[in-house]
């Protein structure tokens, strides 16, 4: 268990205890701390990126109790007692998650900045709809912007991963 203290000296702090990628983490933070900065600055999990300040881009998407959220719209305090999954937790035993693997095989990334958010959004969506159409995948990504790929290979990657994941279950 790791306890860290952040925030302004002498200012009000709030205690946050969160399970991140299966590991229990806790810290005292300024009450205004957003979940994304808690992950990045307090816990050092910098795989989750920040692309805007208007909740428009989705780069900071993580899973909160298994459901995708933009971690810039959630206070760290709101995640207290809950489970967070980030891109750092997607691979297991040195094996990439089928989504990570599919993005690699289908050239679903270029600069890579939106990629963690895209993968986390897709991970959440495929749980909801394991066998989506192309149109459904595109709709599911409405909150995630990419400037490099034109989305085509991202969509292809997610459809490919969906197939791989359903195949694995059979």
């Amino acid at each position, binding site marked *: 268990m790791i306890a860290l203290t952040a925030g*302004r*000296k*002498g200012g009000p702090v709030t205690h946050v205890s969160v399970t991140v990628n299966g590991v229990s983490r806790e810290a005292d933070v*300024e009450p*205004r701390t957003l979940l994304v900065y808690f992950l*990045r600055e307090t816990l050092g*999990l*910098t*795989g*989750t*990126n*920040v*692309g*805007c*300040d*208007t*909740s*428009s*881009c989705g*780069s900071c998407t993580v899973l909160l109790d298994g459901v995708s959220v933009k971690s810039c719209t959630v206070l760290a305090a709101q995640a207290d007692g809950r489970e967070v999954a*980030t*891109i*750092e937790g*997607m*691979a297991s035993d040195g094996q*990439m998650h089928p989504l*990570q693997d599919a*993005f*690699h*095989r289908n*050239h679903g*990334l*270029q*600069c*890579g*900045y*939106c*990629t*963690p958010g895209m*993968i986390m959004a897709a991970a959440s969506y495929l749980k909801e709809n394991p066998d989506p159409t*192309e149109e459904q*995948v*595109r*709709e599911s*990504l*409405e*909150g*995630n*912007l*990419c*400037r*490099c*790929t*034109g*989305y*085509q*290979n*991202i*969509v292809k990657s997610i459809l490919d991963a969906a197939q791989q994941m359903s195949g694995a279950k059979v």
Partner: protein
Amino acid sequence: MAVTQKFVGQPVLRKEDPEFLTGTAKYTDDLTVPGMLWMAVVRSPYAHARIKGVDLTKALGMPGVVAAYWAQDFEWAGPLLMAWPATEDLNNPPHYPLAKEEARYQGDGVAVVVAESRGIAEDAAEAVAVDYEPLPSVAGVEAALAEGAPLVHDDLGTNRSYTWANTNGDVDKVFAEAAVVVKERYRVQRQIPNAMEPRSILVDPNSASGQFTMWTSTQIPHVLRTAMTLATGIPESKLRIIAPRVGGGFGSKLQVYPEEALGLEVARKLGRPIKWTEARTEGYLATHHGRDQVQEMELAADADGKIRGYRVRILANMGAYLRIIAPGTPILGAFLYCGCYQGEAYHIEITGVFTNTTPVDAYRGAGRPEATQAIERAIDALARRVGKDPVEIRRMNFVPPFTEATPSIGGLTIDSGDYPATLEKALELIDYDQVRKEQQARRESKDPKQLGIGFSTYLENCGWGPSKVIGGVLKYAGGGWEAATIRCHPTGKVVAVVGTTPHGQGNETTFAQVVADELGIPVDDVEVLFGDTDVAPSGWDTYGSRSAAVGTPAVYRATRKVIDKARKIAAHELEVAEDDLEYEAGTFSVKGAPESARTIPQLAFSAWTGHNLPEGLEPGLEESAFFDPSNLVFPFGAHICVVEVDTETGDAEVVKYVAVDDVGPIVNPQIVEGQVVGGVIQGIAEALYEEAVYDDNGQLLSSSMSSYAIPAATEVPSIITGNHVTPSTTNELGIKGVGETGTIASPPAVLNAVVDALSPLGVTEIDRPASPENVWRAIRDAKGGAA
């Protein structure tokens, strides 16, 4: 064991991917240094204001605030670098990192605050009291040139920065004698580049040694190092610039930014590491914008539509100051207003204009999308005028196929071209006759959703170089060569050190493919290093689609030098003459006795131990090459767009899109396709959605990602791609560039399609972007005209 598999031409999966996929990639904002402080910039809320005073007292009194400064606290060695003095008469007011007497655009930096955390720095920035006296401002180019317009820089007495002109042939005569003259006026709306990673800077000073390390989200670490020396006086030998992982650039990080110079100076003053990361809404004001031109495009033609002459006048918005290549950005397209068509005369005049807006500079394509949209829309206007199909008018005006460098009427010497071939292939892929039939059926049934078909048969120039040309007639201050070093380690692994700085282009894979093929080793045995001025000391960085066209030949030549040296060692060890050796896929073998052989890894080991080298040969197997191309390269192609336009709501949607591009021989088809598709979508966004809007007071209205219309996945189509290969004569590999073809080609294809869809309603032109509002207006105006 040497590897005989060829990697060049194969869709080798990207070597760089795993770190991005697992969240271990480190962008600048992911980095921290012990003792680090945060910087925040106080920015002018006014487009134009006199700065009567700056009071830092309240900010300095806040807990956690370490320092605060404004313009008078800094002494700069020089202004921020402007590297393209395009004309003799250029007005270039020096641009310093903070405004001192006047703020000249909304977002102009006025003061900085340094604090223990980002939050405290931002809070304290709000506590800085600036006494502004608002002044009249101007945002548009035509208003700025009007009599009595407010002056952005008072002392110049004008808002004109420069006028650049180029003429080929007797234009006046051609126009006077022409049977048909088409004259069109276009507005190329301002764009905000929106690389997904906001800019970020971290400076770590060493006050004992005087060394500074700066990590920054930049496309140009090498150019930036020199520019920072010019601005701060810190010698280049004491400056290390690192571009770590960079989350996209699109030209917006081809810049020397005030915050970079400020970060260095503040770190020098305080002797502590300084970090600054822009908020996205801050970036909308502080990171340069793109495009923003008003164009007057004229074609002179015979009655049958055969083009005789081109006459172009451009007003280009520079914003409040000239940034690094701002005056040259429109000139990058100045030779392309004839597209890939023939003619006898050509004249272009470009006027750069100051306005009270965020500075404008390179955005993916830089000058060439503007040129392409003008000629490709104008040739459609000509087709309408002479009653020809857009395919027919193009076919009759194309420059015929050629394989040796050939002059164009626009003033370029083009490496090679086969324009009809790409058009024919694109027509096949889109199934042209079938699409026209569907269009006809919708027209006959008076379907509210009409189909339109639009063409863009583009030609562009890229692969920025050669140094003597860009520094000669074009008056650019920098060079255009590239550098590479190939280092063979004793155990057979190879490092390629390159001067370009990839940020999504996949060069870690494509350069490795070239090296692996030449040396006969697996692609995974080649590591590509870049983006750190201490690791890769030489290069001119990444922009202008130059990594493949200029960077690859440098890598190739350095690799061939390694092979030349290895041959000497092989001949010595095998006790034969060099001429008696054959080299294939990494193995030297004796002619007629192939069992007598040495591989590159074996020779690298020999070169390392130095136990048995030929007399006079230096040890080590490491070679460098500098490649300065003989010319630019000239990708071309044919893009065809089918749109469905809802004539009741004005909503236009791309339903089918074919891109056939000739970018020369392809190193990695998957990566090339990714570049094409990404660029085409970005261009579709430019044509249909995106616009940076200023109000009359110079306030940016589209001021955040929630009000600037970057399309999501639901708003854009899938692209069908095709290739055609005409090797360039500019470099020995025949390679052209592909990074910008998409944004250059696609906007006019989309706009022409929208006009085509609406032509039964009498619409002949559409304002950019072809948003529902602009489409609806075009329909209304056409109906009004008919009534």
